[in-house]
């Protein structure tokens, strides 16, 4: 089984509680993620993320451990229960670093997902706006190859 996950982190000059609010409150989520968000912030709680140009996506809350961990599943086939294998898991972890907050996000599950092509296409489409390269050594190779080809 192929494993894929995306891992990103940042250090924020604000305490845990402030960052927790920005990550989990719908009125704040609208400012960094969606055009509109609804969220029932407890394990098993439902939510909806929507964008004016892209419609709405359902989500299901997995874990809520204030102020350290918040995770949800999304991008599962309409009408089905989200689980390992049919959805993407997004996990935010917050760690105190001397009054600042280390925020990490991990998105996992794509390769184990058993969606049909349409669902996969939808996922890739939703992730396709704007890109840069982050693939480590492969990218360095590519850059070097392009340089030497000039």
């Amino acid at each position, binding site marked *: 089984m192929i494993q*894929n996950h*995306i891992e990103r982190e940042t250090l924020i000059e604000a305490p845990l509680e402030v960052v927790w609010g*920005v990550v989990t409150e719908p009125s704040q989520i609208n400012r960094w993620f969606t055009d509109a968000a609804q969220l029932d912030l407890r394990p098993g709680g439902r939510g909806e993320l929507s964008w004016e140009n892209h419609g709405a996506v359902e989500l299901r809350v997995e874990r809520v451990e204030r102020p350290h961990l918040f995770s949800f599943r999304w991008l599962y086939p309409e009408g089905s229960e989200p689980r390992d294998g049919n959805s993407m898991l997004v996990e935010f972890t917050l760690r105190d670093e001397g009054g600042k907050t280390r925020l990490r996000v991990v998105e996992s599950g794509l390769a184990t997902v058993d969606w049909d092509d349409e669902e996969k296409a939808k996922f890739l489409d939703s992730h396709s706006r704007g890109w840069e390269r*982050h693939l480590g050594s*492969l990218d360095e190779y590519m850059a070097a190859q392009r340089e030497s080809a000039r």
Partner: protein
Amino acid sequence: MTATRSTDEDLWAAVGEPSRKRLLDVLLARGEATPSALAEELPFTRQAVSKHLAVLDRAGLVESRRHGREVRYVVRPERLDAASQAMARAATQWDRRLRAIKEIAEAAYRDQRSDPEQKENQR
């Protein structure tokens, strides 16, 4: 765009697996190699190397060339470039979101410290 989406998915899956990514790195460094040569350089069995090469071949990332009785593999750089882009898309989205979260949280914290009551008013 529609025609390339499922292809992107194949590409992503093909390079998303760490052993395959490593195999690609070695193949890129060597330029051209037989499965046996790759197996010598990597901690995988010859059989595992063949399996990975088959996946990479299906995704169009490598191609095989026959030299007499030997089959040698080479990387197809243009496809690799597309793969790295497909891999990077979701990551880039999260980079942007984390940047936004950072800005929002830091601004909220600055306001909160300069005017402790403003935190409540903002909600």
